[in-house]
């Protein structure tokens, strides 16, 4: 009986493995210059593949949906869907480029652009679209004018993420999450949405051959969804996928050396204008309001150690100006370095001494103790705080860790503003908001102000940036703001790291986009595969 059982088991196992063996590798085959399929792996969660889904919207923004303009890796703007012009930075004119059409054949018109801005306001999307403008005027079927209440030379920064929607599909639709995928995902980009297979975990895009700049190089782009990053990296190394993608990010620092060893992968560092490891003191309460304390802290941090422990091979030292290189308007400011003697001097200047010999300094009987708040969904931030604790203990400042759930973190920092300091990551988009240069996070009256700076001098500089009528004027104001940061140190960047992109070495032709990374329309046009 045992024999029967085991033979049955072996036979059925063999059956499953051999009879059903169909080749399952999907390596992209090149025929001449064309690439059959390009496979991208991602751990972004996509469950509906509908435009209303955030992760899907972001990725389709690199493939099938177009914004009016794009920003390149150096911070300059270029036309994408539209050509643009402005005389006074107050009125902006967008003209839809020739040949732009929706994937169902209808041409893209200026009405679509106006419709998109007005429609997005009704759908509860954050940010305010049409409401920022005094008026949006359609001039002819290709041209539309946007009029601002006051001049803003950086207005294009806001346009970069507005992916234009087809009016003929969304008009009259109350809730855009209800539009079925085949229609919802119609765009005007070089790829059109083909299908979403939840069981196979793939989203497929087909080349849109009527794209005015020419057909994109890969016939199909497949997005393979992974829940587990380890599996995904294994797939990258074995060639099952051609690259991994993470919006506003790169591969995890820990796997970089492993991927390098694989031998068939290219690692491309892309500049990162976010501040992913920022220590921001509350400049409005003690002890953050004491500049001596801030300077002491900035001099006591072991920046090299931070880069060594948490950064990749591409990590670079941060500067006192708090704004990473690659940001528009960047100027050089002194590099932040560790100088324990200077740090101790600052503390002394501020009147902090260790009179009771417990290893920590006090002033007026109060121990200098700072509570640093971090989010519990970012375990790295807690580790940064721990290293900070060790660093500052050497000059006698006590750091305590306060880990909060995301909701509570937001409540405390945005409503109550009672925290003494936070360690958090600032996104590139957030850094560029309002006047840019992290103003969103630092000026006291802003809703997300971790820094709580109410200094009139700072306000004056921000106003100057607002009032700039040209990019040159803006750059001057930006330089002054960075100098202000270097002088006053309201926040400290612990280290800066490039986003490292990883792809199979067979491919070339990637270029970096300031918003989306190396997946963008230019890449699709230039992509090539070695034989």
């Amino acid at each position, binding site marked *: 009986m045992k024999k029967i059982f085991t033979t049955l088991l072996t036979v059925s196992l063999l059956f*499953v493995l051999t009879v059903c063996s169909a080749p399952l590798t999907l390596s992209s085959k090149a025929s001449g210059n064309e690439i059959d399929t390009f496979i991208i792996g991602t751990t972004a969660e996509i469950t509906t593949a509908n435009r209303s889904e955030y992760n899907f919207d972001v990725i389709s923004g690199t493939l099938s949906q177009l914004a009016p303009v794009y920003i390149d890796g150096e911070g300059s703007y270029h036309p994408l869907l539209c050509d643009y012009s402005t005389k006074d930075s107050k009125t902006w004119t967008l003209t839809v480029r020739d040949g732009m059409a929706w994937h169902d054949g209808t041409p893209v018109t200026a009405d679509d652009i106006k419709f998109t801005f007005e429609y997005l306001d009704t759908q509860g999307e954050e940010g305010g679209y049409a409401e920022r403008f005094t008026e949006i005027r359609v001039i002819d079927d290709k041209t539309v004018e946007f009029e601002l209440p006051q001049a803003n030379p950086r207005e294009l920064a806001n346009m970069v993420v507005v992916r234009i929607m087809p009016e003929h599909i969304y008009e009259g639709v109350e809730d855009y999450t209800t539009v079925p995928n085949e229609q919802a995902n119609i765009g005007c980009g070089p790829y059109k949405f083909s299908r979403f297979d939840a069981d196979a975990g793939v989203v497929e895009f087909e080349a849109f051959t009527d794209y005015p700049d020419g057909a994109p190089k890969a016939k199909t782009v497949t997005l393979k969804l992974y829940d587990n990053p380890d599996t995904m990296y294994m797939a990258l190394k074995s060639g099952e996928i051609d690259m991994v993608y993470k919006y506003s990010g790169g591969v995890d620092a820990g796997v970089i050396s492993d991927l390098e060893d694989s031998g068939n992968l290219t690692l491309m560092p892309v500049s990162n204008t976010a501040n992913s490891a920022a220590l921001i003191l509350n400049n409005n309460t003690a002890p953050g309001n004491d500049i001596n304390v801030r300077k002491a802290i900035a001099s006591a941090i072991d920046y090299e150690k931070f880069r060594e422990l948490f950064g990749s091979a591409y990590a670079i030292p941060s500067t006192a100006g708090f704004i990473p290189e690659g940001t528009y308007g960047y100027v050089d400011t002194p590099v932040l370095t560790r100088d324990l003697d200077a740090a101790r001097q600052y503390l002394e200047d501020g009147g902090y001494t260790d009179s009771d010999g417990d290893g920590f300094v006090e002033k007026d009987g109060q121990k200098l103790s700072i509570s640093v708040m971090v989010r519990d969904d970012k375990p790295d931030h807690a580790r940064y705080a721990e290293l900070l604790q060790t660093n500052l203990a050497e000059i006698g400042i006590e750091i305590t860790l306060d880990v909060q759930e995301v909701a509570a973190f937001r409540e405390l920092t945005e409503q109550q503003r009672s925290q003494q300091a936070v360690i958090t990551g600032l996104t590139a988009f957030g850094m560029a908001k309002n006047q840019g240069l992290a103003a969103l996070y630092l000026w006291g009256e802003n809703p997300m102000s971790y820094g709580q700076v109410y200094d009139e001098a700072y306000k004056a500089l921000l106003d100057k940036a607002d009032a700039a009528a040209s990019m040159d004027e803006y750059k001057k104001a930006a330089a002054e703001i960075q100098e202000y940061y270097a002088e006053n140190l309201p926040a400290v960047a612990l280290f800066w790291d490039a986003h490292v992109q990883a792809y199979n070495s067979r491919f070339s032709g990637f270029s970096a986009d300031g918003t989306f990374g190396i997946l963008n329309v230019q890449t699709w046009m230039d992509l090539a595969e070695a034989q």
Partner: protein
Amino acid sequence: MPGDTVLMLVGMDEETVTEEQYAYYQEKTGANRPVMEQFWDYLKGICTGDLGYSYHHNADISSLIAARLPNTLQIALPAILISSLTAMVLGCIMGMKKGSPAEHAVTSMQIIFDAFPSFLLGLLLIALFAFKLGWLPSGALNSIRVPNGPAAAFCDRLKHLVLPVLTLVLGTIPSKYLMICNTVALQRKEKYVLYARSRGLSDTYIAFRHIFPNICQPFLTMVGMNVGFVVSGSLIIENIFSIKGMGSLISQGITARDYPVLQGCLFVSAVVIVITTLATDFLCILVDPKVRYKVHEAQ
């Protein structure tokens, strides 16, 4: 529970929500009605199959569960079957041989396997079979290009199920095996075993034909419990193999604090567990011949 109910249900932030939006959603979710009324509506809904709506997923919870439950079942049910049978066979054979070098080896191996975390096991299997040897796919339930025809598509699905099922099987055999092995070893001292031996029956035959019927009840209970809990899915397996099942649905519901989803899933789980436990108990009773015949005689 932290946070405002309405905002939690809808997934918006306090800072960005406007007064009108808040009032609108409060009306829509019915959070401003008395608690008993809300509860009564919920109970009524359950009877008609309406488990509520999830704003995080933008879908009816019943359709979410209906989409994910089959995926979980496709992995869990074969796994339970295979692991129970294997554990039974191996446990019976080794239980009779308890104390022998063969049994020591197998039991030690099982104990080591038991200590293996399932995610490690899964990753090792993927690394070996999917990437190094290329025999099996590394995840998902279907290939990117599903072959034509029902037979080929079925094979494709089967191929994708092999590794997740194998991972689950290897992880769940040890505990069952140990229980059966020890129980069988104890039964060897029983009189009917001695008598069976005196009739010249082999140890293997005795293990399966004589001992197993006597230890059927605890075995059935064990399998029954496994089946009951299958609905909650295995989060780790689903994560490693990128399969959308109940495990990930529940865990996402926990991290996103999507209470309606959790309520729906746990309700379905509870119902299934109660039903299978009842069924198992009933089956256990039936298996006992004394009960069967008493019932028979009473008629």
